[in-house]
């Protein structure tokens, strides 16, 4: 990511990231439940791939929090 594009994140952005982390977490758990129940190998394989993608989403969202940590002001407004 271009450093010049990095600005401190707003409260709204932080809330969206937090909500999206919860969504991804829930989707991973639901996919895991589907993978256990499924007896169709094609569906199981696709669902397992979905789990990997959701995990990548979580990594991306967490990474954004880490990258913006040092840019955030130390005192709230």
């Amino acid at each position: 990511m271009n450093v010049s594009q990095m600005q401190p994140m707003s409260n709204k952005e932080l809330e969206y990231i937090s909500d999206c982390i919860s969504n991804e977490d829930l989707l991973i758990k639901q996919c895991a439940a589907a993978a256990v129940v499924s007896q169709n190998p094609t569906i199981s394989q696709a669902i397992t791939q979905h789990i990997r993608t959701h995990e990548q989403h979580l990594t991306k969202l967490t990474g954004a929090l880490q990258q913006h940590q040092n840019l955030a002001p130390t005192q709230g407004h």
Partner: protein
Amino acid sequence: MNSQLQNTDLLPLEDILNTILCDLKRSVREYTTATTESNCPSIRQMFTELTDSTLKLQGNLYQIMSQNNMYTAPTPAPRTEVSKQLQSAQQTVQKAQQFVQQRVPNMNAAYQQQPNIPSGPSKFM
């Protein structure tokens, strides 16, 4: 009673997949809203990528469910209705073009001249 539950799925696969499909749709909407309301360009870029990736997952799951008869295909729109909407759309296009032509008279000319207009100050001057 417990042993009966162990031998039976708590929720059929079709219902679980339907729930996931609904949550993917909700997730796409949330990512789209987050994109439009972002201030930091790097965060906007991330939300754009996550919207696209989640849309792909939703499309992929829909295809799987459709192929396995877990999703009732929508009924096709009748031709009369499509023709009616097409006629209305053509009128809308025509009116929109007239609207623009009446207010921006040089627009067509500007488009035609565009290749001859330098794109900006020359780097070599």
